[in-house]
């Protein structure tokens, strides 16, 4: 277990009577893509929010490189190496693409308490930002206002911002949602590259992508992990076919 | 301090709170349904008082005066909703604050232009003048008791309206999800005009009721407006129940603070300094209360996030 980067133990979260996550445990190992699948409302996004600290857990613990993250807020967790992308793009829309990337690089630096030095002339920050934009294929779009980007480009920018943080873990919430076929292909290529710098916990509805990319898959139903395994194991697991895919659905 | 005096002061706090509720109910409703901060709510209160004073002077009837206050404020409310306010629903709070601040300027000076610079006369009806003796021997002004009763009736009416009627269902639906009720075929523009006019009418009604025991003058709305904001922020913006609880809380805190603080300070200070410092602190008390509530519960007592 020495190569475990992120470990989640017995997470619970209820909203009133609704149990969004119910005793969830899973881990993420170096170099892997671990996909989290499940029907709508299974608690996938809630789980991500709990891991990043945006939502407080009712109980359970999260470890990053064996450090217990209890009591640390979302900003602190990001500084410790949790890089995430959002289900719905979450960017500073009035800023340019480059500014959003620089913001990420600034986060990597750890503070923004510099008041008089022009940030867009800071070579170290710009380098990090450009290289991230380069990696996701947005190098040409640095000067564009984020609000003017296409949907797919915003997804790419999300990834780029996460990249600038040089995180220890990527948490990606449906990075391919709403992308066309071509966009999805590009994103798959990008994620394949990224797994080398840090493992990815991936929520995705696109089953083709999941089964093509993931090293392991966990299935979340009604807030519970009903199975974890390789794509092949999951494909043949009868319980999953019954509970999630439905018996009559051929794969 | 006798127990009787203490009870009388509690009644006073209650009455003040009820009056604040009348003012706050419309404000919180408008915010809850339309997401609008309306600083001009105090102007509607003033319009109600002026309309009542003008009608009472012309007809001598207090009932007619009250009806006039409802009508005038509702009309003014509907008018500004149709012409100005509806352009502000999609704007941020800053634009709303500024636009309705501009409305205050227009209404205040416009009223002064129409009615002159001197306060108007509006008196309590003869039937309600003077005090009644309550059980236990407390003499209490009949009119103030009437305000308490009316306030509770209005509160009950508001709860019934929101919870029991079709229009209430629509209002609640509008709070939850604008697109949804539009999709259900409700004319949202009409609903908004109605809600705004209703809030305005309540404010105007409060202005007329209170005008009878206070001074009907230009600028009478702003101090009450600030209090009403304190009330709805304490209660949680958008919640009628919150407005009710907040209003009573503010009414009681303010009244009891004014009454008790100087006496508390007098226990360990010389009298005139105690009166001075106690009064100073009393005038800050509701703001301290509000800051305290917000620090503990950033969305007020009954606010939803």
């Amino acid at each position, binding site marked *: 277990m020495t190569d475990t980067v992120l470990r989640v133990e017995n997470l619970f979260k209820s909203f009133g009577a609704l149990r969004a996550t119910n005793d969830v445990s899973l881990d993420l190992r170096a170099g892997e893509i671990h996909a989290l699948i499940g029907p709508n409302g299974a608690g996938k996004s809630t789980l991500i929010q709990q891991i*990043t600290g945006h939502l407080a857990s009712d109980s359970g613990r999260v470890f990053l490189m064996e450090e217990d993250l209890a009591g640390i*807020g*979302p*900003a602190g967790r*990001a*500084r410790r190496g949790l890089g995430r992308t959002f289900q719905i793009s*979450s*960017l*500073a*829309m*009035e*800023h340019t693409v480059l500014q*959003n990337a620089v*913001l*990420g690089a*600034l*986060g990597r630096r750890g*503070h*923004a*308490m*510099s008041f*008089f*030095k*022009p*940030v*867009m002339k*800071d070579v170290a920050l710009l380098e990090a930002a450009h290289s991230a934009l380069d990696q996701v294929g947005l190098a040409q779009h640095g*000067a564009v206002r984020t609000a003017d980007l296409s949907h797919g480009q915003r997804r790419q920018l999300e990834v780029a911002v996460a990249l600038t*943080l040089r995180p220890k873990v990527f948490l990606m919430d449906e990075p391919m949602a709403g992308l066309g076929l071509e966009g999805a292909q590009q994103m798959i290529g990008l994620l394949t590259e990224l797994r080398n710098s840090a493992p990815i916990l991936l929520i995705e509805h696109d089953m083709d992508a999941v089964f093509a990319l993931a090293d392991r898959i966990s299935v979340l139903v009604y807030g519970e992990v009903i199975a974890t395994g390789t794509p092949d194991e999951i494909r043949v697991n009868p319980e999953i076919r019954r509970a999630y895919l439905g018996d009559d659905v051929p794969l | 301090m006798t127990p009787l005096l203490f009870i009388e002061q509690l009644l006073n706090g209650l009455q003040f709170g009820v009056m604040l509720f009348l003012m706050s109910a419309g404000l919180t409703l408008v*915010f809850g349904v339309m997401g609008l901060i309306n600083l001009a709510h105090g102007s509607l209160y003033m319009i109600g008082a002026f309309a009542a004073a003008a009608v009472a002077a012309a007809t001598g009837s207090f009932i007619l005066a009250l009806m006039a206050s409802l009508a005038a404020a509702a009309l003014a409310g509907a008018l500004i909703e149709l012409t*100005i306010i509806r*352009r*502000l629903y999609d704007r941020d*709070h*800053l*634009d709303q*604050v*500024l*636009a309705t*601040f*501009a409305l205050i*300027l*227009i209404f*205040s*000076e*416009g009223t*002064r232009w129409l009615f002159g610079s001197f306060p108007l006369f509006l008196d309590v009806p003869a039937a309600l003048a003077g005090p009644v003796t309550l059980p236990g021997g407390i003499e209490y002004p009949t009119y103030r008791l009437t305000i308490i009763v009316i306030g509770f009736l209005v509160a009950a009416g508001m709860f019934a309206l929101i919870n029991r009627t079709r229009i209430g269902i629509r209002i609640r639906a509008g709070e939850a999800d604008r697109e949804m009720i539009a999709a259900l075929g409700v004319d949202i523009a009409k609903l908004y005009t109605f809600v705004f006019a209703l809030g305005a009418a309540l404010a105007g009604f409060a202005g007329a009721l209170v005008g009878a025991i206070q001074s009907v003058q230009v600028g009478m709305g702003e101090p009450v407006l*600030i209090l009403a*904001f304190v009330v709805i*922020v304490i209660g949680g*913006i958008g919640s009628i129940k919150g407005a009710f609880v907040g209003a009573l809380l503010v009414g009681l805190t303010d009244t009891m603070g004014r009454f008790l603080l100087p006496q508390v300070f007098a226990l360990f200070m010389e009298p005139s300094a105690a009166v*001075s410092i106690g009064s*100073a602190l009393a*005038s*800050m008390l509701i*703001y301290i209360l509000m*800051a305290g509530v*917000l*620090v503990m519960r950033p*969305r007020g007592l009954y606010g939803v996030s």
Partner: protein
Amino acid sequence: MSRETYLNIATLAVLAGVPLWAWMADEPFTITLATRAVIFALAGVGLNLALGLGGLVSLGHAAFFGIGGYAMGILASHAQSYTPLIEVPFVIEGTKSMIVIWLVAILASALAALAIGVLSLRTSGVYFIMITLAFGQMIYYFAISWPAYGGEDGLSIYLRNDFPGVNTLMPMQFFGLCFAILCLVLVGMNLLQKSAFGLALSAARQNETRVLSVGMEPYKLRLVAFVISGAITGLAGALFADLNRFVSPTMLSWQMSGEIMIFIIIGGVGRLFGPVIGAMIFILLEHVLGGLSEFWHVYLGALLLGIVLFAKGGVIGALAGREKAHD
């Protein structure tokens, strides 16, 4: 250069040119009006940092304006009467030195902003507007009923305070002093907008979650912005008190907060020169409309309404177009 830059230069030229003309034409009151515009602009620049860049709609900035004013009033009144401010545990004397007064004003209003900010920034949206209003009202009522420094009557200072090498009683020289401060602060604000802090703060306004997810605390960013903002408005308050040689609780009233906000809206929210243009127009309106009619507030209201409804982005927005994303 962008159209906005040209507009900004023109603004400064008018702001400096009008009093120069008035000085030559011996119209000292026009210089006083211009000084008033400069000081209001400075107060607005302070609020604009919180409001425009940080998205913090504070309806309590009069508190800092007034605290700055009282810093001047209290220090100068003690110097005027040759009585020390405090004697135990050590003696603090009053002073007539503007530099000392400014430092005290900045420090005092920054401290007040820190205290108010720590509590208020836990809330957001309307609640933030209202809690800042509440703190403002608290200080206002305190000032009215606190007898030591004049209460509602306020404090009169007979002579302006001293600045080395400047005869502050000459309207033109005092204007020059205020104008220089405004320019310095504008330069600083321009740098700040383009700094790492400015980028992070405005990102926090646009998207709080985004800033959190890159490991920065919006709360801290906003608190720092609120403190700097309060300090600048406090400095403006000290100058305003010196302009009038008088300070009173009116400077602390919520209407004052509203007025400072109006400057920003008229000029353009978040624009560097928004409050400058706004304050100039406001003073002009007050002067021109006030002479036209007793009921000039009606016209002012109608004009404000028109700006809010139809000129989104204020005067700068209307003249210079949408804000260009910073390079």
